[in-house]
């Protein structure tokens, strides 16, 4: 029973593995398989079974291989699972390797003509005459390639016993506005299903069965979630430059804003979103808008972050609110633009020349993408500085199941703004003076109608009244106040989520999209009698909770998706005395983190 060894958690009862497996569909980029994969995932979700989908795609428009994996898991584990249980090998370019990578006992659905049966005898093969079936599904030769995708959906649906009604619902949903396309696709899936019913003698353990674990849940990608967060934060200006994997964040925002933020009477926008000429201009526009008093953001990925470095420092030093989304991808340089990573942590936190530390938010779910996008605008205006929101390709571009998002509970925090009325009432105004003792000065907005309102914003040395200075004491005072502001911010940023286990000698610290894999890994470790505590970091700067957590465990593993252990470095530089208690686990092959990797890494060090 090699199958069981490979995945001990999978339970086989009377030859059936129910609601606990993964499907991988290998296709050619640009072949239109995305709709089919969404339908497959959606129909399982509609049956009440927890499900997650990950699109592994190339930096290419059409022609290169792409893989879509769906994980079905009754316990709600939604991290990537390394082992594939069911392969749909539609891509002749990769079919050989795809099949070779399967574990024994896995299922392989493939086009008959690829003759994969002989490649692996320890795999259950279901060869399907897709060409023939496509001809049956449509007479239009041009559409045959497309309908083939929905035929495999039908075959898989029959094999797994997915409700036909849910398949149809999912197809109708996918092709909302196009009745004829929906009809054609339903026919195609039927064709596949009927063929499978008559011709396949099922000889594998994988089944789905209705559950009630997804009622009231939503499916959304992190970028769309961030966009919603921006809209409900009352965003006013966005400037961006297209870059994978962040483009869909602003594109989703444009769609939502056009629908919900247009003045009903005039039909005109209550916002400005501009596609800039590059990232330098995108951050420049956002900063200009923030300076003028608007809630402004830009969204980008690693290469854009590099280009924004100068303005990020400017915004920090001159104290201008702006939100910067970094949907991380693999770097350095162009790197692997369609693969996921958490390697911008250090560059974002310290972005700029000179002494700089920014507020960085680290959402770990789509719900937090929404929540933190919202919070980031409050924080940026409260603390008058750039705020970074770091998600990643895995979180941003993949579909995740989530509880519905909550409506903001607090009014927008527009920060300390000195108005003409306050000035008229005799309030003293010095742009960079810490009057409240929290490091945060007051600002006036351009256009404020009072002779004392104006000040001069400069990236050069400035005193409390915003006048030019090169005096050593002025500079030190300013830099220390900026640090004080960051200290104040520690109380307002999202605090770590800590699951303290009294029996645990070891702790785990992780952040962002690593969360699902950590949760699953902790269960795996527990099953192997390794008790763990878990601190999920949700923002920088670090707070004392992190220190206390490390102190209270014999060893703490910092798990992150980069080569150099960037969070580990930040923690060690902040708390050097804790260095000996810290161990680093780094995953950086561009694929989302999986639980087994974490478990194995910890267990190998705990032996």
């Amino acid at each position: 029973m090699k199958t069981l060894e490979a995945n001990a958690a999978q339970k086989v009862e009377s030859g059936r593995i129910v609601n606990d497996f993964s499907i991988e569909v290998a296709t050619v980029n640009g072949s239109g398989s995305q709709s089919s994969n969404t339908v497959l995932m959606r129909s399982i979700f509609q049956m009440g079974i927890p499900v997650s989908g990950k699109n592994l795609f190339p930096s290419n428009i059409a022609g290169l291989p792409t893989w879509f994996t769906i994980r079905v898991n009754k316990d709600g584990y939604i991290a990537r699972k390394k082992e594939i249980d069911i392969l749909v090998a539609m891509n002749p370019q990769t079919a050989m390797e795809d099949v070779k990578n399967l574990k024994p006992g896995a299922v392989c659905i493939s086009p008959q003509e690829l003759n994969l049966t002989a490649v692996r005898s320890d795999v259950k093969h279901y060869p399907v005459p897709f060409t023939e079936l496509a001809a049956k599904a449509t007479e239009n030769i041009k559409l045959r390639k497309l309908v083939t995708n929905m035929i495999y959906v039908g075959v898989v649906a029959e094999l797994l016993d997915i409700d036909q009604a849910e398949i149809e619902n999912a197809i109708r949903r996918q092709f909302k506005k196009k009745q004829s396309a929906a009809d054609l696709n339903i026919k195609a899936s039927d064709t596949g299903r009927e063929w499978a019913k008559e011709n396949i003698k099922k000889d594998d353990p994988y089944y789905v069965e209705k559950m009630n674990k997804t009622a009231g849940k939503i499916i959304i990608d992190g970028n769309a979630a961030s966009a919603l967060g921006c809209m409900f934060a009352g965003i006013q200006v966005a400037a961006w430059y297209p870059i994978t994997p962040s483009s869909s964040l602003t594109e989703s925002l444009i769609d939502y804003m056009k629908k919900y933020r247009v003045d009903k009477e005039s039909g005109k926008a209550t916002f400005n979103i501009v596609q800039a000429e590059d990232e330098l201009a995108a951050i420049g526009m956002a900063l200009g808008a923030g300076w003028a008093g608007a809630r402004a953001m830009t969204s980008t990925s690693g290469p854009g972050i590099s280009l924004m470095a100068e303005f990020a420092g400017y915004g920090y030093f001159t104290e201008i609110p702006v939100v910067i989304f970094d949907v991380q991808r693999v770097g350095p340089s162009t790197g692997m633009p369609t693969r996921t990573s958490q390697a911008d942590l250090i560059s974002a936190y310290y972005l700029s020349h000179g002494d700089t530390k920014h507020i960085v938010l680290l959402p770990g779910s789509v719900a937090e993408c929404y929540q933190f996008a919202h919070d980031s605008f409050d924080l940026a205006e409260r603390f008058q500085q750039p705020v970074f929101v770091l998600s990643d390709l895995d979180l941003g571009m993949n579909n995740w199941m989530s509880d519905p998002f909550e409506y903001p509970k607090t009014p927008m925090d527009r920060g300390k703004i000195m108005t003409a009325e306050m000035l008229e009432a005799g309030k003293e105004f010095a742009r960079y003076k810490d009057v409240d003792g929290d490091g945060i000065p007051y600002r006036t907005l351009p256009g404020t109608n009072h002779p004392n309102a104006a000040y001069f914003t400069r990236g050069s040395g400035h005193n409390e009244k915003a006048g030019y200075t090169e005096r050593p004491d002025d500079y030190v005072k300013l830099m220390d106040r900026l640090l004080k502001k960051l200290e104040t911010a520690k109380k307002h940023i999202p605090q770590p989520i800590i699951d303290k286990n009294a029996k645990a000698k070891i702790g785990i610290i992780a952040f962002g999209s690593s969360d699902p894999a950590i949760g699953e890994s902790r269960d795996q470790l527990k099953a192997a009698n390794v008790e763990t505590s878990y601190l999920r970091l949700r923002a920088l700067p670090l707070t004392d909770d992190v220190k206390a957590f490390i102190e209270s465990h014999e060893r703490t593993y910092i798990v992150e998706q980069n080569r150099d252990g960037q969070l580990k470095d930040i923690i060690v530089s902040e708390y050097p005395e804790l260095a000996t208690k810290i161990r680093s686990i780094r995953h950086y092959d561009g694929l989302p983190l999986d639980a087994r990797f974490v478990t194995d890494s910890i267990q190998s060090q705990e032996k």
Partner: protein
Amino acid sequence: MVASTPKPQSTNRIGLTLADYKGSPSTLCDGCGHDAITSQIIKAFYELGIEPHNVAKLSGIGCSSKTPAYFLNRAHGFNSTHGRMPSVATGVSLANKDLRLIGVSGDGDTASIGLGQFCHLVRRNVPMIYIVENNGVYGLTKGQFSATADLGSKLKTGVLNELPPIDLCGLAIELGCGFVARSFAGDPKQLVALLKAAASHKGTAVLDVISPCVTFNNHEGSTKSYKYAKEMETPLHELGYIPFFEQITVDYEPGTVTDIELHDGSHLRLKKTERNYDATNRALAVETIAKAAEEKQFLTGLLYIDEKKDNFTDLMHVVDTPIVNIPDSQLRPGKEVLDEVMKGLM
């Protein structure tokens, strides 16, 4: 002794004095062309009666970019990063379209490091006055050539410029700019008229002003020196500006003057010279600039004007209230919107 009553201070149409338009003292070299331009900015804004608090003054980095500190102390200022003022100005305009924007840049800031952003600002037609204080050298870093230095121009050290200059006026016209002028810091009369006309223009108004650097580029062999510019300046026309709040009184002989009505109802009078230049002819403007470069002429005046072009604000189809003044209650959609979106995702 009889106390003399102080002379009543003269004020402009909104009751402010010239002093209300001044800035901090300049820290540039004595005799710098930039200070002469600053004086004309103060004069133009004072005479137009523009509310200073409603102005945002922006700049990049360089000697020229320091000057916004020297005028309009009652206006918010933004001394940004090198070559990036256009993007900041665009952002300010997106947030608050009711602010009057004036940007001051230099030839290094605009023609080299900021060329890309300059092009896109002009392409978008962001409503603002964009002044290039053009002296052909980098002053703050002690006198290296800039990209507007003329071919054959000589540095103090004797180094010869062997690269052709970028003509910012020609470029602006190519990019569709609706207000392109060239002037000289030593010609205050023309400059102030152009500044006022630029303030009445609806989109981006580009003013390339030759502004000699007395320290690094005012010597024999320089084509951006006071002496050279004074000797060579050839105005395309005589300029007269009549603001919208004044009555047109001066008569003129038919055919000698072109009258252009500007966006805010002001008028620009272009009195013809023997050249008979038509500033509304784009092709002529391009040809004139090219020819002037070839023949080493220094032509000044309004090179091109198009008052009909939509500006960036028009193109954004936004509500009349400046985005920044929309109350918070209208910025955050109601709970029913979130519920609707969530339902659609279930």
